[in-house]
């Protein structure tokens, strides 16, 4: 036999079928929208992140040093109050010292590939216009192991840099702006004063605006000579088989060699923090639908509390404790919440299925659809908010019902 408060709760809801249905629909809508919209958001974010993480190195080692080396005086007298001012820093040749040994050591580590890079600015000139870009001098063979750029090639290839020392691989955005196509020749100037020409041997499209318009690849040796920095490498790109290890691996590299090693989480911290804000907005707006659905539950239960005042009075006088009365109405809220929640799961899943048919806006490929990721977390979070607001909404009238003096109703009725 089902517990007494539950059977009274079900009887109450059955006596108000239409209002119950409306409340259930409210919760269903809230849960469904919450799940599907959060799923769309998550789909977008994880796609965006995977684009970034697949195209870019997972750890970038640069020739910067996060903390200046301590002065000898301080090392000599660690406990003394030493103040040193007007330090004239040494001006070392910028670049990663011992990059070759470092690359060898990294290459020996399992689950990890590394490639040397010389990053520098250059100006491409075409048809009388200048385009300032960031040029990455890379070793094409090793670079292909640390990025998925080859997958994003529209025309030509990165590997062509190996056979054409004067080759340059540019992004689709830049190619469009310059009106350049494969095989075209571009004039180049660098801050080091070098002037020469490069030939377009590849065009890539990552979908990331900044890279497609502002970044080009040239052969490492060519870059070194154009920048006037022979044999210098100022970045080492590391790719991991398991991207989850990026933070400890970066810390390990930085600890061992002293150069700044930034995991992708650090490099894209701005984007990640935008995602956090985005999630907060999405969760709070769609979550508020759930809270509004709570008003519907509050409404029906307040009505039932008034309507069934006599039943409550008689149950109290027969010997039902206050907690039993609270239980009746909280269960009513829970029943509405659970029914709405389960229906909302189906609705959310259905909306997601529809959204997956919608072409992704701004996608270059028209067959590309919106990505919706329905994670267990969103289901759990949406359901938890729904149930909490259902119980909260029921709790207020339930407590009022439990506190009402049964005698007041019994006196009034006789």
């Amino acid at each position, binding site marked *: *036999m089902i517990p*007494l408060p539950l059977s*009274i709760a079900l*009887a*109450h809801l*059955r*006596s108000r079928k239409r209002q119950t249905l409306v409340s259930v629909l409210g919760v269903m809508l809230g849960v469904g929208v919450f799940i599907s919209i959060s799923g769309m958001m998550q789909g977008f974010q994880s796609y965006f992140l995977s684009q970034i993480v697949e195209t870019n190195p997972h750890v970038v080692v640069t020739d910067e040093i996060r903390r200046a080396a301590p002065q000898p005086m301080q090392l000599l007298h660690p406990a003394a109050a030493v103040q040193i001012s007007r330090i004239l820093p040494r001006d070392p040749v910028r670049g990663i010292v011992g990059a070759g040994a470092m690359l060898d050591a990294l290459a020996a580590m399992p689950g990890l590939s590394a490639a040397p890079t010389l990053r520098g600015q250059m100006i491409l000139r075409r048809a009388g216009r200048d385009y300032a870009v960031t040029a990455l001098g890379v070793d094409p063979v090793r670079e292909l192991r640390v990025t998925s750029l080859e997958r994003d090639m529209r025309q030509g290839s990165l590997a062509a840099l190996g056979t054409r020392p004067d080759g340059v691989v540019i992004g689709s955005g830049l190619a469009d702006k310059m009106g350049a196509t494969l095989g075209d020749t571009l004039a180049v100037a660098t801050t080091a004063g070098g002037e020469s020409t490069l030939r377009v041997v590849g065009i890539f499209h990552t979908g990331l605006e900044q890279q497609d318009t502002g970044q080009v690849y040239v052969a490492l040796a060519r870059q070194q000579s154009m920048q006037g920095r022979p044999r210098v490498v100022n970045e080492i790109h590391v790719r991991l088989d398991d991207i989850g290890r990026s933070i400890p691996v970066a810390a390990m590299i930085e600890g061992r060699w002293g150069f700044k090693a930034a995991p992708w989480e650090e490099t894209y911290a701005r984007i990640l923090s935008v995602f956090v804000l985005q999630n907060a907005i999405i969760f709070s707006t769609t979550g508020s639908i759930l809270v509004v659905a709570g008003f519907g539950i509050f409404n029906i239960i307040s009505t039932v509390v008034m309507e069934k005042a*006599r*039943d409550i*009075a*008689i*149950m*109290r*006088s*027969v*010997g*039902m*404790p*206050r907690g*039993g009365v609270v239980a009746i109405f909280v269960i009513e809220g829970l029943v509405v919440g659970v029914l709405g929640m389960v229906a909302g799961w189906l609705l959310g899943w259905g909306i997601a299925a529809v959204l997956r048919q919608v072409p992704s806006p701004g996608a270059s490929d028209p067959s590309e659809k919106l990505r919706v990721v329905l994670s267990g977390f969103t289901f759990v979070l949406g359901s938890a908010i729904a149930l909490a607001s259902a119980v909260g909404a029921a709790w207020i009238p339930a407590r009022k019902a439990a506190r009402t003096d*049964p*005698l007041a109703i*019994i*006196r009034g*009725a*006789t």
Partner: protein
Amino acid sequence: MTIATLEGRGLTRVLPGPVPTTLVAEVDTAFPPASFTAITGPSGSGKSSLLYLLGLLDLPTAGEVLVDGQPTSGLDDAARTATRLERFGFVFQFHFLLPEFSVLDNVMLPMRQLGRLRPEAMRARAMGLLDQLDMPEVAHKRPDALSGGQRQRTAVARALANDPQILLADEPTGSLDTRNAAAVFAILRALAREGRTVVAVTHDEALAATADRRIRLVDGRVVGGTAAG
């Protein structure tokens, strides 16, 4: 002499307010087991108020209600509720049946609240009570499909669900015709003969005359009858 099952000592109930209203004033009365007491008095004399005090539904302003010789003034709401559930059966002037439940389910409500019997035993006991009250055929009907007399008898059956020692009835015959009223009173008398303490409020002098003892109230005070003190 046996201990009274239910006893009121100096029971007084004053409604607070700008002009305090005295509902019940200094009532001393004891109800032994196996007795059927009728409380009579004019309308507004405090009969219902006294019954609510005796049934632990209301708290006296002064005085004490004793159940089995034990004072109850120290009990909190939960304890008084539990005592009502286990020791008391109530029949109100208005039947107060739950409209969504069948007659059988209504009779079972107090048993389910108490939770001492297994479901089959509850069902059997509820059927037995309906049998005893001569209405087994309505067990599966809803209260709104019953006659007034049947509803009142259902309320009596519900009051007896947990086999209470004390049965309090407030004008259980108020909405019944003479024949049905006499039938309900006959049931109450029979219950007293079984050993229960039965107290019934009525304004019907003829019915009151069939009780073992009578208490008459006027303006909240006991003014006569056969069982004062």
